[in-house]
């Protein structure tokens, strides 16, 4: 038996809780003002330094394509900002969906961190948004989504672009929850080597690896990581904040999170509000397995049910067609094609 060797030189990562952004998917974008105030206050009291608040698909994501917000996300940003003492409020923006207009407004409502996300090959559509965020005095984070679709060296090239536009940190984002721990580590390591700024990692739990991948990313040098209470996010959810806090504490790198308070917030505050508990069930595992965008889950389920198709068939076909972040409209397209391929009459709704 060889002795257990703990990794050396680990340092506490900065944790961004994204229950109020990635969790928006599981809530079908129906968060109320009161829910947001309560959750933001609880996260703040538990020592979470950054709380992300936005529609799941970023500012201005409220749409037919992604689902309409019950309360405009900018109003929710303002609610969260009004209750926190220490935590800073982050917003997500996907160029092509949201614009600089919403970013400006988010600052007025109390956001101080801009997280700007692109498909991992398209970083050069984010230049104007980083530029504005910096002009507005915001801290900036770049998000390279669907990172499993490209090798580490391509991710590093794209990350360098974001750094050149003004990113203070660039994340490897495993939007499909499709990465294995060594892939997560390799991607983070490539960015660490290429960049002067910080590197982050955002996990999804479709293959049950959210905490494992996050830990692998930290070991590879990630400075920032994301999580949600109860893992409440798209697909099978994200790394659970309360679990991550316990794990980081055991690893001796707790960045100041109150483990028990987070457990309580997860169990007594969030769980009773949740429409369902995201979990690696068969559809969610299929997302990780086929490498498609985690937010496709509920849309594929709804359309599959309506047209009488197994959502897994739709998801696998979307993976084959190399659908990328934000392409929810292809779900209907694929489903209609599958119906037609069966020789049934075209669906007329």
């Amino acid at each position, binding site marked *: 038996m060889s002795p257990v060797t703990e990794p050396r030189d680990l340092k506490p990562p900065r944790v961004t809780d994204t229950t109020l952004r990635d969790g928006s998917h599981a809530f*079908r974008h129906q968060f109320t003002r009161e829910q947001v105030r309560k959750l933001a206050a609880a996260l703040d009291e538990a020592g979470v330094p950054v709380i992300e608040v936005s529609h799941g698909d970023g500012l201005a994501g409220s*749409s*037919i*394509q992604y*689902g*309409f917000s019950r309360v405009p996300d900018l109003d929710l940003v303002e609610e969260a900002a009004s209750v926190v003492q220490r935590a800073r409020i982050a917003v997500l923006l996907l*160029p*092509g*969906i949201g*614009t*600089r*207009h919403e970013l400006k407004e988010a600052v007025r409502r109390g956001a101080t961190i801009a997280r700007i996300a692109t*498909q991992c*090959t*398209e970083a*050069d*559509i984010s*230049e*104007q*948004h980083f530029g504005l965020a910096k002009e507005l005095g915001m801290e900036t984070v770049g998000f390279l989504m669907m990172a499993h679709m490209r090798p580490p060296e391509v991710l590093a090239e794209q990350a360098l672009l974001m750094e050149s536009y003004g990113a203070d940190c660039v994340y490897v984002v495993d939007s499909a929850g499709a990465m294995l721990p060594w892939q997560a580590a390799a991607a983070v390591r490539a960015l660490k080597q290429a960049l002067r700024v910080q590197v982050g990692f955002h996990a999804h739990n479709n293959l049950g690896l959210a905490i494992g991948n996050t830990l692998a990313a930290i070991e590879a040098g990630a400075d920032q990581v994301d999580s949600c209470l109860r893992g409440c996010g798209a697909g099978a959810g994200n790394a659970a904040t309360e679990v991550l806090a316990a794990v980081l504490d055991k690893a001796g790198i707790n960045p100041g999170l109150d483990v028990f308070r987070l457990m309580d917030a997860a169990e007594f505050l969030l769980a009773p509000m949740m429409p369902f508990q995201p979990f690696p069930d068969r559809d969610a595992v299929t997302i990780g397995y086929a490498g498609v965008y985690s937010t496709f889950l509920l849309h594929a389920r709804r359309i599959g049910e*309506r047209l009488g198709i197994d959502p897994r068939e739709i998801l696998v076909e979307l993976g084959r*067609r*190399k*659908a*990328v*972040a*934000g*392409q929810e*409209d*292809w779900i*209907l*397209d694929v489903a*209609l*094609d599958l119906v*037609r391929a069966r020789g049934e009459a*075209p*669906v*007329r*709704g």
Partner: protein
Amino acid sequence: MPGNGRVKVAILGSGNIGTDLMYKILKNPGPMELVLVAGIDPNSEGLARARSLGIRTSVEGIRAVLEDPEIRIVFDATSAKAHVRHAKLLREAGKAAVDLTPAAVGPYVVPPVNFGEHVDAPNVNLITCGGQATIPLVYAVSRVTPVQYAEIVSTVASRSAGPGTRQNIDEFTSTTARGLEVLGKAAKGKAIIILNPAEPPIIMRNTIYCIPASEDLDPQTIRESVEQMVAEVQRYVPGYRLKNPVHFDRRETPWGERTVIAMLLEIEGAGDFLPPYAGNLDIMTSAARRVGELMAQHMLARVTV
């Protein structure tokens, strides 16, 4: 009035768009005669191609266009910033401008939707590729039942999105959304653009969603109006087609559970110069050629009367 009964036209800008447009006009000139392609880069591939086809070229840009009094229509495929300057000079010279940049100096035009309103406009703007693609179908719905909300998602191959689009992506979403309202007649418009890096590149795709103002609607009338419009656009963009029949869905919306009309559109380019997957660029150059043709017809008709 030139002797051959055609209207002399020029292309300003010798990049991808200008060059594809050149091939389109040469292939099907209608009442136009392409007499000049003007750029500013002596090494431009577009100018070399124009020369090899026997078209007069210049690296003097707008100056060369202004020096030729016989040129009556100018297609501007440069940049928004340059077009603002060009627009003024062309207007002073009495030349009509078809603006393929996002400058939007003149009114928005989508040929089968509103060209008739602007036949005499000194300057017309072609909005965006997403606008040219989707506005006809929003208009096709709104002309038979009022549209409360229209939303479009344009997905283009990464390779077909040039630096201009990439550095100005906000302008795409805001200009296209406005076009859905102004020309598509939707009370509220929203536009989303997605770049897909798949190899081989994907053919341009557009999803058009409309929420009718009233639930009292006749699906058959809507389908017929949409199919008719698709056929009309196909006259100048042969690769314009619905992938599936018009789909009627029910969705949760801020206005309660409502009917959502979904139209899944694919645009394959003609491959004149740009590759067929770049339907987003093809529809711009096709629309430009069509607007030029209609303007020229109008000019000739006016002269003979």
